[in-house]
């Protein structure tokens, strides 16, 4: 079979396996997979913009939280797909406005700003909820775990395909060019502001969608849960761990780290965080190219031996 077609065999097999999984796998497994999928989407979305343009955003929680809150507020009064769509759209608009304003900042300042912004959003909502409206928490509409699973399954493929294709368009290459050298990109005639802003907003859109679906895991939520710093820095950590240079990096990082966290978080939270920190440290200091680079080297050794 020619190599090109071979490329699609594996994803197809996996897709079919995952699609029928709920029929025979236990509930815990399904909800675990749904969570893994959601982290894959978050990491891949983050990687699309931040990996290409090298603008490290630590504000993903702002957009996850936006989707989260849209469902928390309207999930009971509007049909669920409308709410999910709304979560994505409003995240997009929000990050568009934010992007126009902040994408002038570079490097360190951008990272701090995005983090500060997400914290600002969180604290504003906490203040509004607790002091102004007197509603410290909200009941959320409840969805079946199988429903969440299937949406996530579909999304994970859609998002991956979407960004994969997008990367190969002019738009994608422009973003990559901005990452290599923004000044050069400007000189060549790329309207960096528009490209950056749209890229940023696209990556935030899916974060919002994930947020608006995932919130239904809980029955009673507050802003602290939705805008938790976890959603800001985990996508970054997962991508870096997996390998920021490769398109498989975020998927690898997301799968491994989210599985680890789900297993270890039950009762071992602090140990997990220490291990996570140590792992991150290890990779940043010794393997800045991430896990993927090791795998690449290993497989290259094999192909050299074989071929």
């Amino acid at each position, binding site marked *: 079979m020619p190599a090109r077609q071979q490329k699609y065999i594996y994803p197809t097999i996996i897709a079919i396996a995952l699609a029928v999984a709920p029929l025979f796998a236990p509930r815990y497994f399904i909800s675990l997979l749904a969570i893994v999928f959601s982290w894959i989407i978050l990491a891949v979305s983050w990687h699309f913009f931040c990996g290409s343009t*090298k603008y*490290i955003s630590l504000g993903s929680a702002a957009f996850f939280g936006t989707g989260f809150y849209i469902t928390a507020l309207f999930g009971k009064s509007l049909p669920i797909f409308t709410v999910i769509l709304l979560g994505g759209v409003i995240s997009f608009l929000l990050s568009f406005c934010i992007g126009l*304003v*902040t994408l002038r*900042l*570079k*490097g*360190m*300042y951008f*990272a*701090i*700003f995005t983090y*500060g*912004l997400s*914290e*600002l959003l969180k*604290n*504003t909502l*906490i*203040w509004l909820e*607790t*002091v102004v409206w007197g509603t410290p928490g909200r009941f959320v509409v409840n969805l079946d775990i199988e429903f969440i699973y299937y949406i996530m399954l579909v999304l994970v493929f859609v998002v991956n395909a979407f960004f994969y294709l997008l990367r190969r368009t002019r738009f994608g290459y422009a973003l990559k060019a901005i990452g290599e050298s923004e000044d050069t990109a400007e000189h060549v005639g790329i309207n960096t502001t528009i490209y950056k802003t749209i890229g940023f907003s696209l990556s935030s859109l899916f974060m919002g969608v994930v947020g608006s679906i995932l919130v239904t895991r809980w029955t009673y939520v507050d802003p602290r849960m939705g805008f938790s710093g976890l959603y800001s*820095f985990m996508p*970054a*950590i997962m991508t*870096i761990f997996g390998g920021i240079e490769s398109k498989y990096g975020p998927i690898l990082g997301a799968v491994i780290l989210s599985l680890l966290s789900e297993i270890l978080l039950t009762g071992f*939270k*602090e*140990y997990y*965080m*220490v291990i*996570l*920190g*140590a792992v*991150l*440290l290890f990779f*940043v*200091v010794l393997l*800045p190219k991430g896990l993927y680079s090791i795998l690449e080297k290993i497989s290259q050794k094999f192909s050299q031996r074989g071929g």
Partner: protein
Amino acid sequence: MFPSLFFEVLIGGLVLGLLYSLVSAGLNLQYGVTRILNVAHGEFLMLGAYTTYFLFILFGVNPLISLLVSGLVSLILMLALYSGIFRIIIKRSSSIEELEMETLLTCFALSFIFQNTAVILFSANERGYIYASQLISIAGIPFALNRIIVAIASSVINFVIYAFMRFSRVGTALRAMVSEPIGAKLVGINASRMYMLSLLLGCILSAWAGSLISMMFAITPFIGSNYLMIALVATVVGGLGSFIGGIISGIIMGYAVYITMRVISPSLTSLVLYIVLILILLLKPRGLFKR
């Protein structure tokens, strides 16, 4: 009662502000010289606080004396981190942006490790001790003695550090590293020694701030994050790399926080912090003070 409130805010804000200056001056110095934004800075503060706490509870050591120990402990820790980690990254980074990003993530990871190790070792429960809690009256307003001690101690430390930076040879060298990194090396300043020195100095200041804080408030493994945030905002407001800016903006932040807590509403304290950060980054990202 206007004058009374005025004095209360004046002194209360100063107590906080001087404390914040310690923390943010340290952060600022580290970043200015090495371009490492040490987001684990708060953990050194926490380490200092717990050191003083245990020395007081177990051996009855006066918190002011324990400053020596807490400074030493964080110095040793930073030395280990520098030799083992930071030096490697500094050596191999090909650009400043790369260095900044990698060290940002490194310090991030370190803060996970330290905070959670502290939770494992010390538990997440609050711990506190009572020291100098007698009331003394200043301008007719009661203040706990420990607050006044903290204010005096932190102003002394601030002053000494400022004098050191301004008048000593090493201090001048450090300032040169901040404003003219290339020129400084050209005139023969040993860059790696300066890096190490600034990192050590910064974390000692942070640990001292932590020890002082433990005199006034209860401590948990998470107090580092609060003060880090404030230090970060103060550093950005003052201008990344400006040492004197760090001190002054620390005091400004102290007043901002105290006035919000006392006069406006404590529930707005975090909001005020982040609004200040966002505004400064948007309007004057280089900070209020020139480097």
